[in-house]
């Protein structure tokens, strides 16, 4: 999780494909070879709105291969609604790749990935990387309802084992994805991306089982590049990710999720 952002820049991309895996969920493919080449698993981009009057939107990089990068997003408000209107041929400016991604090592042989809702967008690249290294990868994937378990086949085709949950029981087991995780044989490493309660509970399970865990946090960003200090989370001042700041008397520093993160070690968070 400690990589410099030197390769980030503005990319002028073009939409080359678009699909809606479920109602309100959009995947757009972009011609962006330089971005694809620079991207590491767990990084994100800031997508520049066409119309102005709103900040850019943070989106995980879903796929990055050769000349193509894709973004997967849920239509949540004004800005994602605008992005959803893009069609092949349209231009889109992206800042990125941003943030420090997951810290993946060849020694990670048994990995669990926990994804909730739109968190799925940030975990395909680490899954592919781990599979390439020959690791066993289990995807614990939860959503509100079956239709929103988008892209599960994509992960299965790539070689992930999937453990599914839905809030309403329409697919997989009924309940929270972290319940499924708690009932499973523990992996040696956990990666997680999703809503904060899911991340907290993943962190708790990891700490209880003394398993390493890396969490990709989500917040409402403004700048997305570390300039505004609007997206912080307390971490131990001893963390290698601590920003250049004197820690408070109780040893804590507020780190920027966009800059020092978005991926943090569960045992270093003080939230």
């Amino acid at each position, binding site marked *: 999780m400690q990589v410099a*952002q*030197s390769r*980030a*820049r*503005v990319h002028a991309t073009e939409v080359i494909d678009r699909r809606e895996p479920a109602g309100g969920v959009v995947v757009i493919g972009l011609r962006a070879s330089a971005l694809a080449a620079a991207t590491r698993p767990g990084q994100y981009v800031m997508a*520049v*709105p066409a119309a*102005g*009057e*709103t*900040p*850019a939107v943070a989106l995980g990089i879903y796929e990055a291969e050769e000349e193509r990068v894709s973004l997967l997003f849920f239509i949540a*408000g*004004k800005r994602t609604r605008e992005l959803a209107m893009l069609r092949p041929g349209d231009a889109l*400016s992206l*800042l990125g790749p941003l943030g420090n991604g997951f810290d993946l090592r060849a020694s990670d042989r048994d990995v669990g990935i926990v994804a909730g809702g739109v968190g799925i967008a940030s975990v395909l690249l680490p899954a592919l990387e781990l599979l390439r290294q020959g690791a066993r990868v289990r995807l614990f994937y939860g959503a509100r309802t079956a239709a929103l378990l988008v892209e599960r086949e994509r992960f299965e085709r790539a070689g992930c084992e999937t453990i599914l949950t839905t809030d309403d029981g329409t697919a997989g087991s009924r309940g929270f994805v972290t319940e499924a995780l708690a009932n499973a044989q523990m992996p040696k490493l956990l990666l997680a991306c999703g809503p904060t309660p899911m991340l907290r509970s993943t962190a708790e399970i990891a700490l209880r089982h003394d398993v390493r865990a890396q969490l990709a946090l989500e*917040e*409402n*960003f*403004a*700048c*997305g*590049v*570390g*300039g*505004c*200090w*609007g*997206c*912080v*989370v307390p971490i131990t001042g001893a963390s290698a990710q601590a920003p*250049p*700041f*004197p820690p*408070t008397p109780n040893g*804590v520093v*507020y780190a920027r999720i966009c*800059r020092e993160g978005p991926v943090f070690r569960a045992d270093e968070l003080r939230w």
Partner: protein
Amino acid sequence: MVERGVDLGVDIGGLRLRYPTLMGSGCYGSGEEFAAFADLSKVGGIVLKSVTRLPRSGNPMPRLVNTSAGLLNAIGLQNPGIDWYLEHEVEKFAQRPCKIVGSVAGFSVADYAYVCERLAARLEIAAIELNISCPNVASEGETFACDPRLTAEVVRAARGVTKKTLIVKLSPNVTDIAAVAREAEAAGADALAVINTVRGMGIDVERWRPRLGNVAGGLSGPAIRPIAVLAVYEVARAVAIPIVGQGGIETLSDALEFFLAGASAVGIGTANFTDPRIPERIADGLAEYLAKRGLRSISEIVGKANLGFASAHEYEGDAG
């Protein structure tokens, strides 16, 4: 900077800028964060995040809320404090291809003077901006910027400790911003930054809770532009020192409104979160706008919409 026969340079109370743009305090980190996305040699300067005497962790999260054409923030002045700042941060600013303006915040007159003196002593810092939108601990927490007398006191104290350009940043959350501006000028300010954010609040209607950790915050972005343009217009009629106009500038046309209202330079904050290329686009646009009209410098448009109010008993306007 001379482009297309037009000189975009301005002098803000002794601070010479090659472009008439300052990146707003708190919005641009120390400049380094944006270096990969924006051409820093095409901005006039960067106003650093405000720094205080002691380190501050800032406000609880959430600190940001999007609103209609605006952004509410309540960062709470997270900063490492002046000691750490001088030791670890300031030296980096030497390498920036634009001017660096330090921003000072505090909770007592002594705070301001102390931080101002130490910061201004550094060569890397070209000028000082006083962020006076903080509550004064000595007077039941009344905000410095909301009281002309407190404003005068803090400006006088800062003036006493540095000869560098002193920019005083005014708050729009007052009944009469021109009165505060006059006091700041009389107390020795070299320039005024107009405006800081407008106080506001958002409520989460599902959870029945304020959306900001700090309850109230500051509104910025296009939503506040008309408020800021009027503030600049009124302050320009009240003082002789130059004004850095800011509040919701996102396009060339937005920036022009501020120059025409009486600003000699413009501040750009929230727009950088929309697209970091905006400051450069505005600079290019300004050169083209002036060249097309046969004008050679920014000064030829400053205050040119300044016709005064229409009627003697100017109707407050806010009640149609």
